[in-house]
């Protein structure tokens, strides 16, 4: 009996021993595993610094169209503050149109500029002159480029990652003082801290202190879910200990400052103090004052509970508690804490600088133009061609007009959508991208991805193909008469004009200006479908469209971005400038990455393009686009084309001035009919964008052997400005014989300016 008892006991001991041994082994394996996870992932994330993305800096020079108010607005956007410029960089002083500016040290794509004081004199509508501090003339000066985002070129997350040098001492010490006082002493887990927290909780009768170290918080954010279990707590503790074993306190603190969650901007989580500073105060971290740093530190405890935009009182109280703690830890003096506690929160107005649709294009162009291995490097700087003023104008114009059109529409179960791209046709620089009416949000980027039939936007390609044959000119009479075609599949096609009218014999300039379908189909068939398709390809369309007669009326589908590429060539005198959102990328040492560079290529005969473009100015002066003039400064000459797809599913306008090209699309995501022509939907949006970016008139340099002649808009006969009420100026090859209007002596206009003046007079009457 006793023997068996001993035996059983021994057996039990063995079992327990084996179980214990197994547990120890398991724990060891588990620890090794966690150690691996910690080292591998932390190492990877610590050094994955995203690329900083900058907008195009604003160049100031005599004649630059920037007013004093706009200059001040730009300075504020760049976080310059009003004060005494002698006090330091980042400060300006304004007296009327005179500015003294202490510019910051800036790394531009082509040079490093040291801080410098400059004087800028702004007049009523443009910059008059600039001077150095010593009074000598300064021919050209650029402001800092605006930081618009941070992308991981490969996976694309928005974050401002601080390097150890970027962390202000007050933040470093303050976070430790408030969140983890024994951070420098413990090894990842702080038993004393846990006891203290327990004691505090016991006395209060509820959980008021967490007792987690910064390392534990970081581990939790990096590797673990949010559940509160013993198992998770144990994992967290082991990982925190392993992290401390492998990495320096400084690395861990900086990683924490970059990782901690501080708030929510719609769908975008605000992680890290760098982005937090930008999001709440629109300032770089280095420029925050004591109260602002205290508020950010305070948010760590409860980002949504203390959200300063939603709960200003709680946020204020929390900030002041932190200020007191900073004073108690002797990081600031008591008087400073008291002063800061009396200050307002100083939040920047919400909205504005976040441009996800543009950054989307930046990411795609990075992949297109740079080697993936180069992009994986840390600390890249991306210089884009974004113009923040044009971007803001385009966003406002689209949202305003879509709301207006929605209110006027009978459709109640859907909202109109839209997209805008603005580009500089001379360089191919894309300066603004709006991917939909929810401008600050990520999501379907219609500007890049909505592929829609372009309708009459295709017509300029048909007319250009005709002009290039040399058999046509602006006064050539076309036949706008019904036509029925047998298609290759055996069916028949009988296109109609949008108005369902038939116009008979019309000059080419009018057929294009009034977007006549029948005349265009007849012209296109005469020129030949292959030639039209070739023209589209040489203008910049990447895939050759199918040779179907309906191509002539724009059944071909394109994204707004593709339309921009094609129209850029029209706006650039027949030279194709490849679109780009990225100017250059510098590595961490400031050296440019090697890029695939394409600039300008001759794509279409400049003389033919000039003749076409002059006809496109008649679209906005006389034709379907004439609604634009009411929204533009008087006398502005613009060229463009309306587009409407069948059943008014898509409303387009593509047009350009001397400085900008913009393409606007308006429609429903589900492809239903909008009831809007290009003139009713997209055109007003386009005109407002063009008006607010201050475009110079479209006045191309006339090619040699091309001259201006007056013709009757209705009959195409050569005339004079005074002789026919509907006289319009067109460009034709020099010496082209034109039939004259009886009784009107033909003489070319004196000068282009005179001609434009009288032409405008004639369009008004």
């Amino acid at each position, binding site marked *: 009996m006793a023997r068996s008892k001993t035996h059983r006991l021994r057996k039990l001991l063995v079992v327990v021993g084996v179980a214990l041994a197994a547990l120890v082994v398991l724990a060891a394996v588990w620890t090794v595993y966690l150690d691996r996870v910690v080292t591998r992932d932390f190492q990877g994330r610590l050094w994955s610094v995203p690329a900083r993305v900058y907008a195009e800096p604003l160049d100031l020079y005599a*004649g630059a169209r920037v007013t004093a108010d706009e200059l001040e607005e730009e300075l504020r956007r760049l976080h310059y503050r009003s004060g005494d410029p002698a006090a330091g960089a980042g400060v300006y002083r304004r007296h009327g149109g005179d500015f003294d500016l202490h510019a910051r040290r800036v790394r531009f794509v*082509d040079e490093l500029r040291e801080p410098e004081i400059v004087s800028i004199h702004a007049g009523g509508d443009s910059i008059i002159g600039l001077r150095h501090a010593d009074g000598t003339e300064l021919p050209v000066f650029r402001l800092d480029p605006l930081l618009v985002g941070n992308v991981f070129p490969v996976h694309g997350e928005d974050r401002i990652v601080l390097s150890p040098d970027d962390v202000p001492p007050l933040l470093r010490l303050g976070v430790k003082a408030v969140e983890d006082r024994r951070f420098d002493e413990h090894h990842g887990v702080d038993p004393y801290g846990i006891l203290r927290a327990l004691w505090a909780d016991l006395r209060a009768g509820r959980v008021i202190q967490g007792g987690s170290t910064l390392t534990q918080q970081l581990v939790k954010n990096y590797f673990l879910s949010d559940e509160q279990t013993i198992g998770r707590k144990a994992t967290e503790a082991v990982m925190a200990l392993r992290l401390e074993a492998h990495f320096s306190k400084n690395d861990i603190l900086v990683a924490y400052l970059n990782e901690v969650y501080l708030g929510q901007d719609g769908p975008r989580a605000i992680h890290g103090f760098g982005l937090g500073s930008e999001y709440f105060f629109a300032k770089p971290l280095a420029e925050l004052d004591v109260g602002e740093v205290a508020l950010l530190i305070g948010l760590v405890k409860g980002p949504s509970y203390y959200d300063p935009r939603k709960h200003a009182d709680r946020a204020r109280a929390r900030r002041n508690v932190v200020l007191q703690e900073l004073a108690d830890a002797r990081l600031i003096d008591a008087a400073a804490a008291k002063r800061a506690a009396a200050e307002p929160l100083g939040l920047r107005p919400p909205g504005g600088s976040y441009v996800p649709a543009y950054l989307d294009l930046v990411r795609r162009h990075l992949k297109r133009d740079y080697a993936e291995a180069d992009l994986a490097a840390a600390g890249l700087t991306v210089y884009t061609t974004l113009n923040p003023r044009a971007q803001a104008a385009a966003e406002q114009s689209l949202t305003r007009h879509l709301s207006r059109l929605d209110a006027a529409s009978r459709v109640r179960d859907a909202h109109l959508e839209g997209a805008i791209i603005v580009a500089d046709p001379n*360089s191919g620089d894309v300066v603004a991208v709006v991917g939909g009416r929810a401008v600050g949000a990520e999501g379907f980027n219609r500007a890049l991805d909505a592929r829609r039939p372009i309708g009459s936007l295709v017509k300029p390609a048909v007319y250009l193909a005709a002009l290039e044959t040399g058999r046509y000119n602006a006064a050539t009479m076309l036949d706008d008469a019904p036509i029925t075609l047998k298609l290759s599949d055996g069916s028949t096609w009988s296109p109609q004009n949008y108005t369902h009218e038939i116009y008979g014999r019309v000059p080419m300039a009018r057929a294009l200006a009034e977007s006549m379908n029948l005349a265009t189909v007849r012209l296109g068939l005469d020129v030949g479908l292959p030639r039209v398709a070739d023209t589209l390809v040489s203008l910049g369309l990447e895939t050759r469209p199918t040779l179907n007669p309906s191509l002539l009326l724009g059944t071909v589908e394109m994204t707004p971005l593709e339309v921009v590429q094609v129209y850029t060539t029209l706006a650039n005198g027949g030279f194709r400038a490849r679109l780009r959102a990225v100017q250059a990328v510098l590595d961490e040492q400031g050296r440019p990455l090697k890029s695939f560079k394409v600039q300008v290529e001759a794509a279409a005969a400049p003389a033919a393009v000039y003749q076409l473009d002059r006809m496109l100015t008649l679209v906005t002066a006389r034709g379907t686009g004439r609604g634009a003039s009411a929204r533009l400064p008087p006398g502005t000459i613009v060229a463009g084309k309306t587009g409407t797809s069948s059943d008014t599913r898509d409303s387009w306008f593509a047009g350009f001035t001397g400085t900008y090209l913009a393409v606007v699309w308006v429609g429903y995501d589900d492809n239903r009919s909008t009831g809007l022509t290009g003139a009713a939907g997209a055109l007003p949006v386009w005109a407002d964008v063009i008006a607010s970016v201050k475009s110079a008139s479209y006045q191309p340099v006339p*090619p040699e052997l091309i001259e201006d002649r007056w013709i009757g808009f209705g009959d195409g006969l050569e005339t004079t400005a005074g002789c026919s009420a509907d006289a319009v100026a067109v460009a034709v090859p020099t010496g082209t014989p034109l039939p004259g209007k009886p009784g009107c002596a033909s003489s*070319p206009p*004196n000068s282009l300016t005179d001609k434009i003046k009288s032409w405008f007079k004639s369009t008004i009457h």
Partner: protein
Amino acid sequence: MVQVDHSLKRLAAGFTAAALLSACSLLAPHTPSSQPPTPQTSSPQPPGSPAPLPSLPPAPAPQVPPPARENHLSAATRSLVTQARTQVAHGDLPAASSTLDRALRIEPNNPLLWIELGRLRLAESDAHQAEGCGRKALALASGDRIAQAQAGRLLADALRGQGRNQEARQVESQPFMNSSP
């Protein structure tokens, strides 16, 4: 060693570029010496219109040469061209390229800037891009004999750089090629 080779190469490229660039003197005023210098107007031109538009003659007869135009650099673009040349002289061609991009944003229709950019492309051994710049410059130089001749020389050099010697000779036989700055 690799480093040395690299910087030597850059230096050589820089010298070549400097030599090429100095061949066409964009920075020198284009006023013929027989005429008094044209006064610099104080009112600046808006961006996008580098030169006043020409007056069209009432009835252009075939033999009469087209109206004279002269393209100039503004103070701003002149200083940027100077800066670009300094960058080229230091062998920093990418920076020079960015500086000229900046000048072109200020005066996109100035053929002199396109000529400058085309010369830079040649220095970068990119004759294909230089050709595009040359053609663009030639189109913009319409009516300006001096700019046309410079654009024509650029275009001919760019074509030769691609082995298209016959096309280059064709460009050089154009009447405007006889004008000299």
